[in-house]
C-alpha cells in the first residue's frame, strides 16, 4: 500500500503549503506564458519525411545533383488560350525575374522560356542550327513571337515548360534547404507568402491567371488554413464552458477546470517553445486535445468535491478528500494517455515525433494543473460563497427530485446489462460488430487516396492549380526517380546505358506510369539529331564515341546525370500518388531490377516527390503494428498494475480494441487513408479512451470490495462517475468535432476519427465493460 502512503504524503505536502503552491503556479504561468508568445511556426520539409528510410538516404545523397522534391512550379495561363501575345511574354519575363530574386530559391534552377539554358536545335543542310528559344534581341512583336513559337516547337519543351495546347507557360525552380544569408533552415512559410504576394498578387490579371504549386506553397496554404483553428478553438472553449456550467451549476466552480486547462495549454506551448520546438499545422491541433483532456479531468475533480461538500464537509477537507480519491485513477489515466502519445515516437518521421513529444508534455502538465493546482485552488474558495450554491443545489435537488430520480432510474435501467443473458447478448453483438469491422478494416489503404495535396480539400485553390497543371502539361507532379549507380563515365558504356534503357521501358509499361525520361531516352533523340533528325536513328549506339557524342550534349543541370556520370536517374511520371500506384511501381522495381543489374550497375530507390511519399507510406505501414503493440502493451501493463487482475484488464482493453477496429473500418468506409496524420489518431484514441474504463472499473472495484454485487456496484459506479464519464466523452468530442469545419482536409479527417473514438470508447466503457465483467465473474 505504499502508493497510498505516497499519495497521503503528497496530499499533506501540498495542502500544508497551499499559498506556496499557488504562488509557484502563478509564477510559472507568467514565465511560460511569455515563452509561449515567442513560439514560431515551423514547417521544414525534412520534418515531414522519414529521414532514416532507405529511399530517403538515396534522396538525400543525390539531392545536390538532381534536385530534391522541394520545388516550385508557377504556371501562367492566358485566358485567350494562346500565350503568344506581348502582354503574356512581358508577365512571364517578370515572373521569371521575380522568382529568381526570392530569397531561398536556388537561382541556377530557375527555368522558363526565358532561361538561356532552354534551347532549340534544328537540323539544316550543313549540320545543326540552334540557340536559346528566346533570342537575346527578342522583341515581343509579331515577328519575334512567331520566331519564338517556332523555336518552342523545335526545343522539345512543349508539355514541359509550355502547355500542350500553348495556353500556359511555366516558371519552375528548386528551393534550397537553408537560407543562403542566415544559414538557418529555410522559412517555407515566408517563401509561400512571397509567392502569393509578389507573384500571384502582382501578376494575376483578368487575362492572365497564375497557378502556383510545390511543397512550399502547399505548406503556406496549409498554414493559412491552420489559422482558422483559432476560431474553432474559441468556439470549443465556449461550448465546453457551457457544458461545464450545465454540469456543475455554479459559475464559480465552472471557472476552475476551464482556467486550469487553459493554464495547462499555456504551459505546454511555453515548454515546447523553450525546448526550441515550433508549431506546425498538425501540432496546432494538440492544444484542443490538451484543453479537452484537462477539462474532463477537472470535472471529475469538481464532481468529487461537490459530492464531498454535499455530505457536509468544509471546502478544504472536501478538496483534500477529492485529491486523495482521484489522485490514483487520475494519474493512471493521464500516464496512460502520456504513454499512448509516447508510443507514437516509434514512427521515424519528424513531424509525428514532435507531435508525440508535445502531446506527452501537454498531458504531463495536466497532471500538475488538474490534479494538484485545481484541488489546492478549490480549497481557497470561501465556504460562505458556496453555501448559496449548495443551498440552491439542495433546493434544486428537491425540485428536481423527479428529474434526478429519472436520471437515476435511467442508470437503474442500465443494470439490466449486468444480467448474464443480456451481458452475453451484448458481448455476442459486439463480437459480430468486431468481425464485420475487422473484415472491412483489412481494406484500409495506406497513404493518400485522393489526387492533389491530401492536406487540403479538393476544391482548394492549391489543388485546383495542381489539377490544372497536371492537365495542361505532359509531366505530372507525382515523380518517382530510380537512381542507376555505376562507375564514372558510365554513360559512355553501351551495356550500362542499354540496361538502364531496357529497365526504363519495363517500368514505363507498369500501370500507373504516365511517362518517363532518363539520360538514355534523351541520348537517343540526340543521336537521331546527329543523323539529320531521322527518327529511325533513335537508338543508343554501341560505339563509345558515338554514344559519348550524344551524351555530351546533355548538361548536368538537366538533372539527368551527375558530374562524373556515375549516377543516372530514371524519372517516372506517375498518374497519381495513391499508395497502391506507388507500391505497384516500387514492387516491380524491387522484383525486376536484378534482371538489369550487373557488377557495374545497381538501381536504387528512390527520389522525387513520389519517392518521398512512398518512403513515408512504407514508414507508416511499418510503424502501424509496433505502434499498436506498444500502446496496447502500455495500457495493459497500467491496468494490470492498478487492478492486479487479468480479468479486469481484459474488461477494459477489449472494448478499446473493438473501437480501434471500428475506427479503422470507418476510415475504410470514408476513404481516409492511413497517413502521418491519421496514424497517431489511433494511438491518441486508445490512450485517451482508456480513461473511461479506468474510472468506471476503479469505482466498481471499490464497491465490489465493499461486498456489493456486480449489478449494485455497477449502478453505484454509474451514479458516482457515469455523469462525469458521459460529460468527459462529450467534452472531448465537442473539442475535436469543431475541426470538421477546418479548411484543411487532414484536420477534418482527424476530427472525424477522434470524435468517433471518444464517443464510442465512452459507450464501450458504459455498456460493454460491465457486460464483460458480468461474464467473467459470473458468481458475484
Amino acid at each position, binding site marked *: 500500500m505504499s502508493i497510498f502512503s505516497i499519495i497521503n504524503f503528497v496530499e499533506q505536502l501540498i495542502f500544508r503549503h497551499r499559498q506556496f503552491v499557488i504562488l509557484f503556479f502563478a509564477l510559472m504561468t507568467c514565465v511560460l506564458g511569455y515563452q509561449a508568445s515567442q513560439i514560431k511556426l515551423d514547417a521544414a520539409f525534412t520534418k515531414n519525411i522519414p529521414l532514416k528510410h532507405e529511399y530517403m538516404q538515396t534522396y538525400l545523397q543525390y539531392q545536390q545533383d538532381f534536385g530534391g522534391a522541394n520545388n516550385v512550379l508557377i504556371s501562367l495561363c492566358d485566358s485567350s488560350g494562346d500565350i503568344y501575345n506581348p502582354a503574356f511574354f512581358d508577365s512571364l519575363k517578370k515572373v521569371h525575374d521575380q522568382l529568381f530574386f526570392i530569397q531561398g530559391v536556388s537561382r541556377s534552377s530557375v527555368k522558363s522560356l526565358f532561361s538561356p539554358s532552354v534551347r532549340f536545335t534544328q537540323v539544316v543542310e550543313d549540320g545543326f542550327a540552334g540557340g536559346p528559344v528566346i533570342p537575346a534581341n527578342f522583341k515581343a512583336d509579331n515577328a519575334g513571337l512567331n520566331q519564338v513559337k517556332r523555336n518552342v516547337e523545335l526545343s522539345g519543351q512543349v508539355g514541359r515548360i509550355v502547355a500542350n495546347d500553348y495556353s500556359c507557360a511555366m516558371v519552375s525552380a528548386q528551393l534550397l534547404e537553408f537560407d543562403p544569408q542566415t544559414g538557418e533552415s529555410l522559412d517555407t512559410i515566408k517563401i509561400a507568402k512571397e509567392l502569393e504576394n509578389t507573384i500571384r498578387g502582382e501578376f494575376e490579371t483578368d487575362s492572365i491567371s497564375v497557378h502556383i504549386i510545390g511543397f512550399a506553397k502547399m505548406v503556406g496554404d496549409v498554414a493559412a488554413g491552420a489559422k482558422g483553428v483559432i476560431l474553432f478553438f474559441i468556439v470549443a472553449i465556449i461550448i465546453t464552458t457551457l457544458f461545464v456550467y450545465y454540469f456543475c451549476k455554479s459559475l464559480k466552480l465552472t471557472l476552475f477546470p476551464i482556467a486550469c486547462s487553459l493554464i495547462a495549454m499555456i504551459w505546454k506551448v511555453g515548454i515546447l517553445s523553450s525546448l526550441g520546438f515550433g508549431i506546425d499545422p498538425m501540432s496546432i491541433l494538440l492544444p484542443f486535445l490538451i484543453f479537452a483532456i484537462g477539462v474532463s479531468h477537472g470535472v471529475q475533480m469538481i464532481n468529487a468535491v461537490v459530492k464531498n461538500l454535499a455530505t457536509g464537509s468544509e471546502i478544504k477537507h472536501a478538496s483534500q478528500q477529492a485529491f486523495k480519491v482521484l489522485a490514483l485513477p487520475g494519474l493512471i489515466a493521464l500516464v496512460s494517455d502520456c504513454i499512448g502519445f509516447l508510443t507514437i515516437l516509434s514512427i521515424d518521421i519528424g513531424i509525428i515525433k514532435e507531435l508525440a513529444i508535445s502531446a506527452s508534455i501537454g498531458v504531463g502538465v495536466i497532471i500538475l494543473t488538474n490534479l494538484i493546482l485545481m484541488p489546492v485552488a478549490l480549497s481557497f474558495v470561501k465556504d460562505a460563497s458556496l453555501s448559496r450554491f449548495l443551498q440552491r443545489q439542495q433546493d434544486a435537488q428537491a425540485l428536481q427530485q423527479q428529474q434526478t430520480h429519472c436520471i437515476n432510474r435511467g442508470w437503474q435501467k442500465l443494470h439490466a446489462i449486468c444480467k448474464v443473458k443480456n451481458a452475453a447478448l451484448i458481448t455476442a453483438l459486439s463480437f459480430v460488430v468486431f468481425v464485420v469491422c475487422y473484415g472491412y478494416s483489412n481494406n484500409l489503404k495506406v497513404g493518400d487516396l485522393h489526387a492533389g495535396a491530401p492536406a487540403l480539400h479538393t476544391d482548394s485553390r492549391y489543388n485546383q492549380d495542381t489539377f490544372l497543371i497536371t492537365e495542361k502539361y505532359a509531366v505530372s507532379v507525382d515523380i518517382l526517380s530510380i537512381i542507376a549507380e555505376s562507375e564514372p563515365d558510365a554513360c559512355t558504356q*553501351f551495356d550500362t546505358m542499354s*540496361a538502364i534503357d531496357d529497365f526504363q521501358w519495363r517500368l514505363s*509499361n507498369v500501370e500507373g506510369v504516365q511517362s518517363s525520361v532518363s539520360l538514355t531516352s534523351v541520348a537517343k533523340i540526340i543521336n537521331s539529331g546527329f543523323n539529320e533528325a*531521322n*527518327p*529511325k536513328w533513335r537508338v543508343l549506339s554501341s560505339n563509345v564515341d558515338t554514344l559519348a557524342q550524344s551524351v555530351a550534349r546533355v548538361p548536368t543541370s538537366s538533372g539527368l546525370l551527375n558530374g562524373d556520370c556515375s549516377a543516372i536517374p530514371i524519372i517516372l511520371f506517375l498518374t497519381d500518388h495513391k499508395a497502391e500506384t506507388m507500391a505497384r511501381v516500387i514492387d516491380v522495381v524491387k522484383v525486376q531490377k536484378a534482371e538489369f543489374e550487373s557488377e557495374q550497375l545497381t538501381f536504387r530507390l528512390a527520389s522525387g516527390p513520389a519517392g518521398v511519399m512512398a518512403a513515408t507510406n512504407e514508414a507508416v505501414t511499418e510503424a502501424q503494428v509496433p505502434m499498436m503493440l506498444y500502446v496496447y502493451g502500455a495500457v495493459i501493463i497500467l491496468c494490470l498494475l492498478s487492478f492486479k487482475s487479468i480479468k479486469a484488464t481484459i474488461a477494459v482493453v477489449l472494448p478499446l480494441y473493438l473501437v480501434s477496429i471500428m475506427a479503422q473500418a470507418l476510415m475504410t468506409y470514408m476513404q481516409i487513408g492511413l497517413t502521418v496524420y491519421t496514424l497517431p489518431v489511433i494511438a491518441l484514441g486508445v490512450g485517451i479512451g482508456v480513461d473511461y474504463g479506468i474510472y468506471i472499473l476503479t469505482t466498481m472495484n471499490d464497491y465490489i470490495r465493499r461486498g456489493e454485487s456486480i449489478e449494485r456496484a455497477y449502478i453505484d459506479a454509474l451514479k458516482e462517475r457515469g455523469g462525469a464519464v458521459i460529460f468527459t466523452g462529450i467534452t472531448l468530442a465537442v473539442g475535436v468535432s469543431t475541426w470538421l469545419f477546418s479548411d484543411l482536409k487532414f484536420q477534418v479527417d482527424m476530427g472525424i476519427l477522434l470524435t468517433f473514438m471518444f464517443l464510442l470508447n465512452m459507450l464501450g466503457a458504459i455498456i460493454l465493460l460491465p457486460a464483460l465483467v458480468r461474464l467473467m465473474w459470473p458468481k458475484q
Partner: protein
Amino acid sequence: MIAAFQFKLGLLVKLTVLITFFCANALFAKPAEIQPLASQSLLTDIIQFNFQQQPVFIAVGERGHILRAEQGKTEQLDWQQVANPKSDMLTKVFSLQSNTSLVWAVGHNGLILHSKDAGLNWHVQHFAPELDKPLMDIFFFNEQHGVAVGAYGLYLMTHDGGASWQSQQHESLLTRDDREYLAEVRLESEEDYLDELSAILPHMNQLAFDGNSLWLAGERGLVATSKDKGQSWQRQDIEYDGSMFTIKADTENAHSIVVAGLRGNFFRTKNAGRIWYASHLPEPSNINAIKILEQGILLFTHSQQVWYWHRQSKRLTAAFKTQSKTQLGAIKYQDKLITIGDQGFEAFVFNEKNFEQAHRFIPSSVPVSSMQNQLTK
C-alpha cells in the same frame, strides 16, 4: 559538310577497331519484350497485304516491336505484338506481293528478319552487330532475289531467299566529285581505295520499285536507279544535296516517282527522272514518309503536321495534325487512315474529296525547276 565527312571517316576507323570488341556482346542477343505500350512507342513502318485473301497489317518499330493485326469486324484494328528474337530497332517491313505469306523486316545492327507465315513467326536471316550499321530498307524481286540497303554504304544482296547475303559496294552511287577523288586514290593504292570507298559511301534510306527499275533514295541528295535488279546503279541529279529519306512510285504513270527528305523538300518526276520538279513544304520540317493516294500524296513530317499534295492542282494543303511529334507513314483501313509515329498508332478520317475545294488550299511555292537528267556513268 566536310566536317561531317571527316567525322564519318574517323568513326569508321574506330569502328573497325571496335568490331572484334563487340562481337560476343550478350546484350545483342536479347529478344524483344512483349509490352502493352509497344503500340504507343515509336513505330517506323507499316504495311498492308493480303494473306489467303484476308488483309493483314504489320507495323514495326523501336526495341524490335512487331505488331500485327488482321481484318476484323470491329471498327478498330486489334494490334497484337508478336515475338521477335531480337530487340534492335526495326526500320522497315516488306511483303513480297499483294497476296503472300512471305514478309521481311530490317533493322539496326544489320538485322534481317523473315517470316514465312505472314508475320506470325519470325527468324533471323542476317545479323551483324559488329558492323554497327543499320539496314534501312529491303526489297525482293521474287522469292529468291532480294536487296537490302542501309547506312554507311551497307548493301546486301541474296539469290536464295535470304539464306545467304552478299555485301556489295556501288561506287556509282557517289557524286562525280567523289568518284574523281577515288580514282586518284586508286592510282596510288588499291587498298586505300577500298578503305576510302567504304568510308565515303552514303546512307541509303529507301527503295522503290516502279515495275521496271528499282529506285534508291539516300544521304546528301542521293537518288539512283537500277535497271538490272540492283546489280548496278545510276545516280540521278536532283540538284539538291540535302538527304532524301523516302521514295515512292506514284500511280500517275509507270514512270512517276516521288522522293522527299530534309527540311520539307520533295521532288517529282513523270518520266523516270528525265525532268524533276522541286517543291517544298511551307515549314522546314523533314519529310519522313510518303503515302500515295488516289488523287494525291500525303507527306508525313518530323512535326505534328501532315501535308497533302493534290496531283491535279499541284497544291499543298495542311491535312491534319497528329499527337506524334514525328510521323512515319500510314495505311488505309476502312474509311480511316492509321498513322504511325513516335506515339504509336493514331486514326484519322481523311477524305481526299474535301481537299479539292480551292478555299482549303494554302498557296505554296511550286518552283518547277526543269533540268536535263544527267545520267551518271
